């Protein structure tokens, strides 16, 4: 087994909102808080958000849900068991990279999940810069809807959404495990395509309204060049 650790920065090009859910309410708290580290209280990007978004974008890009009729679910090993369908080799990379849920049909073919997406924590420089500028690590954005008859704000539509402001930088780390029979270059290239798609799409909630635009900067210069040259 070989492990390659890929590190870099996720730089926010617009406000990011990854919701913390409504598991608890704080008096005077914002309606839609962002997820924060339980100990430090700083916002972070969960590994599950990065992994899930990249996986879903790759599945859209490779037209997986149409080819294998996944009914809106993530691609699983069981979807590739229909022998009447032509299974494309590249599609198997999705399961190798991101894993599958348990299935009797999953004999040793796909193996274990190859990637490990760690939580991306906000870096110290960003914390200092944000605290200096605004005194806090998040911003509150107010939004309303327009009443189509009156042309003014719709009654009851005012809402407050917490976001991590534009410019904040998060350190991310992805480990890629490969085994002797794996095609490392193919897995790496699929992963880089996923990152490329992420920069064209959005991370977190309200992506269609401009939230969550990000750019990626890999620490390894060669990898950064390879990433910039990646064509979709």
């Amino acid at each position, binding site marked *: *087994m070989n*492990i390659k*650790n890929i590190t870099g920065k996720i730089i926010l090009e617009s406000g990011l909102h990854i*919701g*913390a*859910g*409504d*598991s608890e309410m704080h008096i005077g708290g914002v309606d839609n808080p962002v*997820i924060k*580290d*339980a*100990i430090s209280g700083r916002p972070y990007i*969960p*590994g*599950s958000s990065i*992994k*899930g*978004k990249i996986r*879903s974008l790759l*599945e*859209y890009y490779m037209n*997986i*849900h149409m080819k294998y009729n*996944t*009914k*809106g*679910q*993530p691609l699983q*090993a069981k979807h590739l068991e229909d022998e009447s369908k032509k299974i494309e080799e590249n599609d198997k990379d999705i399961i190798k990279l*991101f*894993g*599958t*849920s*348990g*299935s*009797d*049909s*999953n*004999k*040793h073919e*796909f*193996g*274990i*999940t190859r*990637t*490990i*997406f*760690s*939580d991306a924590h906000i870096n110290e420089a960003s914390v200092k810069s944000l605290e200096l500028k605004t005194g806090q690590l998040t911003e509150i954005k107010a939004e309303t809807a327009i009443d189509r008859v009156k042309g003014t704000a719709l009654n009851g539509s005012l809402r407050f959404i917490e976001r991590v402001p534009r410019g904040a930088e998060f350190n991310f*780390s992805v*480990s890629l*495990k490969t*085994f002797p029979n794996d095609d490392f270059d193919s897995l790496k290239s699929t992963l880089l395509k996923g990152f490329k798609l992420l920069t064209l799409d959005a991370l977190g909630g309200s992506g269609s309204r401009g939230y969550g635009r990000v750019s990626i900067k890999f620490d390894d210069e060669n990898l950064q060049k390879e990433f910039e040259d990646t064509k979709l």
Partner: protein
Amino acid sequence: MKYYKAKIKPTSPFGTNPMSDTIFGQLVWTLSDMGEDLSKLLADYDTSPFLVVSDFLPFNMGNVPKIPTIYKVEGAKNDKINKILERKKIKAKNYISIETLYSTASLNKNKIVELAQALVKFNKSAEIIRCSINRKTGTTGDGFDPYPVYDTFFTDNAEFTFYFYIADESNFGMIQEALELIGKTGFGRDASLGRGQFEVLEFDEIEFSPENKNAIYTLGNVALEGLSVERAYYEPFTRFGRHGNIRAVMGNPFKNPLVMALQGALLFGDNNIFSKPYIGKSIRKLSYYGDTVQQGYSLYIPINVEVQP
């Protein structure tokens, strides 16, 4: 008894408790991924295990031994109130230093209560809400509703001590490498989402002598059934185990439930009890897969407890 000791610093939240049998399973799978021959390593596992590991013990402290204590609430009204309040304080002190347990010449119920301490806050369990993107709607709704998971987050000062015994000392390098690899890749639930990662700070050798000792304090979960011990004080724990690695996703991932004694069991027996540097037994045929092995062994430290009449 010679053990190795490693200092572990968590570098990410944990999704699974770092208990001995979990860590053992993870180490065995990692050794397999490293290309080691498992059938050779596990050949004599029933009689002389190649590796026995402990729980990750926070700040080198273990669970307080489950020795029965007699606690009388009597006296004047104010005394009773004070004693009841004190009882809550005592209950909060549920850890005891491994070194103190070993070095104290003669332990008894009162001494154990006296030596027990509450840990400094080093972790926090938090509910994380997750959801999945529906590929048809592009949103998280429509049958893909959010669900909560619980992760344990650690403070910067959190630190664990991990003990392990290796039958053949020439295997030390291999185990060291496997442990460091697990630290990088994580263990347990959601390892692919960065859970269960740690850094191994240092390795050390440590020796415990059973001289003038009469009891065993276990450093990990142990399967007690069929063992010849005179008395045992422990907290039972049912392990609803799961297979790891590829077998976690191959169908039939579950193991049969197994009742074990939680770390911190106190066992009394004759001198034979110290004959091996570990106690317990191997567990096999625990699941659909015939070659399954579960660590039912535990490391221990010899201690001296005043025998009550």
